[in-house]
């Protein structure tokens, strides 16, 4: 019985999280008939897309044993720079815009990776520093002006209006959900089925042991931060497309919410643990609460408190599960069994 329950709970409490989401959905449906509709669902999907992409990057860094707070700065730097590059009608399809932004993002990520891996510096401090640098350079040298829908490259405004499904009453499912889902699946596959992915877990488990077993730690970390940078840039462009504007002052400041969602999804802040499934659930739960608390009559001022309580609960459950799992074997019984 307990074994089956433990399996349902999943290695990183994913099952528990799913149960909480189901409970919240049921509670909200009962409290408000407006909740359980396709429109609400599509809105939830839409608002989860950007945080989800960011969360994947955060997850990868957390698994490797680090904390990255520079991803919103990379995202807006890459997206805004790309937008200004293509603004004067110099063509460029959406695909090209994504590619250029992701290259910029990978470049900025490489800077993080090189500093962190070469000099073995604490990731939080390094990315705190680079976050400031990226944002400063963006505003000082590239532009500080808000770019509204009319001035955006045409490829972006066209992309903004492409819906996959429309429902009566104004709800719609944006087509960008397709690449987002593909990326989620790719990252999950990478973590599970590639040596690179397993090396990230290994480095997060014990960096010195990884070095000794022959993992090229520096190279792996540099590639990892480049990948995370590219992911952030992708998220940045999606953000610009969905919002139909490019504001260099946006995004930076949202990093802790994303990290909270990933930790809620079962990733360990000490590294080595975390899954894409849990991350998706963590992001969905946070968005569910952020979007719909108002719907059930709770003032929006309580949103942050609710997310905070959830985070504390999530981390406590993790810590509790960890101490129980690692409780020292009982001396006498062990002797008897042997």
């Amino acid at each position, binding site marked *: 019985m307990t074994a089956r329950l433990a399996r349902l709970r999943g290695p990183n409490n994913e099952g528990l999280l799913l149960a909480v989401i189901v409970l919240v959905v049921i509670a909200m449906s009962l409290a408000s008939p407006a909740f359980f509709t396709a429109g609400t669902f599509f809105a939830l999907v839409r608002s989860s897309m950007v945080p989800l992409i960011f969360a994947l990057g955060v997850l990868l860094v957390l698994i490797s044993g680090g904390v990255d707070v520079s991803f919103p700065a990379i995202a807006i730097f890459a997206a805004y720079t790309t937008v200004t590059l293509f603004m004067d009608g110099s063509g460029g399809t959406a695909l090209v815009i994504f590619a250029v932004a992701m290259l910029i993002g990978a470049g900025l990520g490489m800077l993080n990776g090189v500093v962190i891996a070469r000099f073995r510096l604490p990731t939080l401090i390094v990315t705190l520093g680079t976050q400031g640098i990226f944002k400063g350079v963006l505003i000082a040298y590239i532009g500080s002006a808000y770019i509204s829908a009319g001035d955006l490259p045409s490829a972006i405004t066209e992309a903004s209006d492409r819906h996959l499904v429309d429902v009566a009453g104004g709800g719609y499912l944006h087509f960008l959900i397709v690449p987002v889902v593909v990326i989620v699946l790719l990252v999950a596959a990478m973590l599970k*089925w590639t040596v690179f992915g397993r090396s990230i877990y290994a480095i997060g488990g014990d960096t010195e042991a990884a070095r*000794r*077993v022959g993992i090229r730690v520096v190279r792996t970390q540099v590639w990892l931060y480049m990948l995370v940078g590219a992911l952030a840039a992708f998220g940045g462009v999606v953000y610009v497309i969905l919002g139909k504007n490019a504001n260099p002052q946006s995004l930076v400041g949202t990093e802790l919410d994303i990290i909270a969602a990933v930790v809620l999804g079962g990733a360990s802040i000490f*590294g*080595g643990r975390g899954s894409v499934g849990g991350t998706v659930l963590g992001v969905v739960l946070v968005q569910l609460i952020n979007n719909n608390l108002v719907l059930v009559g709770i003032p929006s001022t309580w949103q942050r408190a609710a997310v905070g309580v959830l985070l504390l609960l999530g981390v406590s459950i993790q810590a509790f599960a960890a101490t129980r799992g690692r409780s020292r074997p009982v001396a*006498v019984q062990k*002797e*008897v069994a042997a």
Partner: protein
Amino acid sequence: MTVTATPVLEVRDIVKTYGGVHALDGVSLSLAPGEVHCLAGENGSGKSTLIKIISGVERADSGAITIDGTTHGHLTPNEAIRSGVQVIYQDFSLFPNLSAAENIAMLSELAERRVLSSRSRIRAAAQRVVDDLGLSLDLDAEVERLSVADRQLIAICRALVNDAKVLIMDEPTTALTYSEVQRLFVIVRRLQQRGVAIVFVSHKLDEVLAISQRLTVLRNGRVVESGDASGYTRRAVSKAMTGRDVSETRLVNDVAPDAPQLLEVEHLSRAGGFDDVSFALRAGEILGITGLLGSGRSEIAEAVFGINPADSGRILVQGKPRRIASIHDAVDAGIGYVPEDRLTQGLFLDIPIAENMVAASLDAYRTRFGLLDRRRIRRSIADLFGRLRIQAPNSSAVVRSLSGGNAQRVVLAKWLDRKPAILLLNGPTVGVDVGSKEEIVTILREQAAAGMGIVVISDDIPELVSCCHRILIIHDGHVVAELAGDDIDADEIQRRMAA
């Protein structure tokens, strides 16, 4: 020399200096297939540096390494692994968050430069090694949840997954019980038959002499002895390592007949740990508590010190019953405890020796105004630093830079500075070389002579025999024997422990 086969590993004239100090000064070593070669030496003799150079982690200043006929001037870790050199580190270097199977197979996946990782291939590779060695291990379990002995087996399996030719085992027996060591030796002999050359590093000289065919002793970065292991006795190896005669003879001071009872433990029990344990300790006495790992010996000490308090029973300190429900209570009662794992439980690694020494007794240095009396602190530190003969440039060196023996002395200093009436020590010489061991035992004798009551929990029987007035033997959570005076005998203790 009895070696006739071509050596699988040959190290010639290795020199390595760190900041002008010769860590290795022209060290040569050769290893034949199927040979168990013991590398002995005190902490700081250059053993670890030599291992790091052979495994490619460190680069030698000069000298050459020949593995299987190929000479390498500069070896990288990956080259060493590909040429068949494997190291089992003292801390095992496993990934706690990954499964046993993945820990074992990670190495071959990387060596084959794979891009995709396959769970079934990993599982099969790990299973093959495990079957090959005739072990039973839960391959799907996360390493974090396995016992130390199982982790050791996983580290061995990992080293063998890639057909190692040379296996270096750095202190493989430190954390193992007697029967686990025997099981390890069976595996070592099996590997030996298969032609794997093994370098065995250990402080436990009895084990070393039992398993090795050849022996090389390093001292201060030079080879001082090298030859057939059968030609050496425990005493001769100790002497080669330290350069002096190390005494392990039994030497106990008489306890005054009117010495007061410091600690009386009556019918102490804790579910799952130990049952109905009673003993007494007088001032000036050294009491040994021994038993196999998992017998409950550590749990008894942890109960007396309040870490995991007992469920029932009584503890009297200096004749007065004391309720010990927390570490705080124990410290108040005048009890000190030197834990088993000093690196994680007893020391602040990145802080200077001096500050570690007074860390537990700062309260005693408060002036009238609640400030710290720096002058008195400095005096105490200088006194302890000299009294415990800590080998470090000065007392402001960080603890992490010290060898095992010296770090242990800092832990001792920390507790001695509190001047406890009763001092419990759990494995005081684990991972400490013979020379330091002797000195630590001497320090304990001095403290006892000065009136302290000392309890030593250990499975190092020669050490207990050399200094204890009485020895309790724990089995399955019960005191099965109490030996005193002339009855204390190493063979007898060994027999009773396993019974």
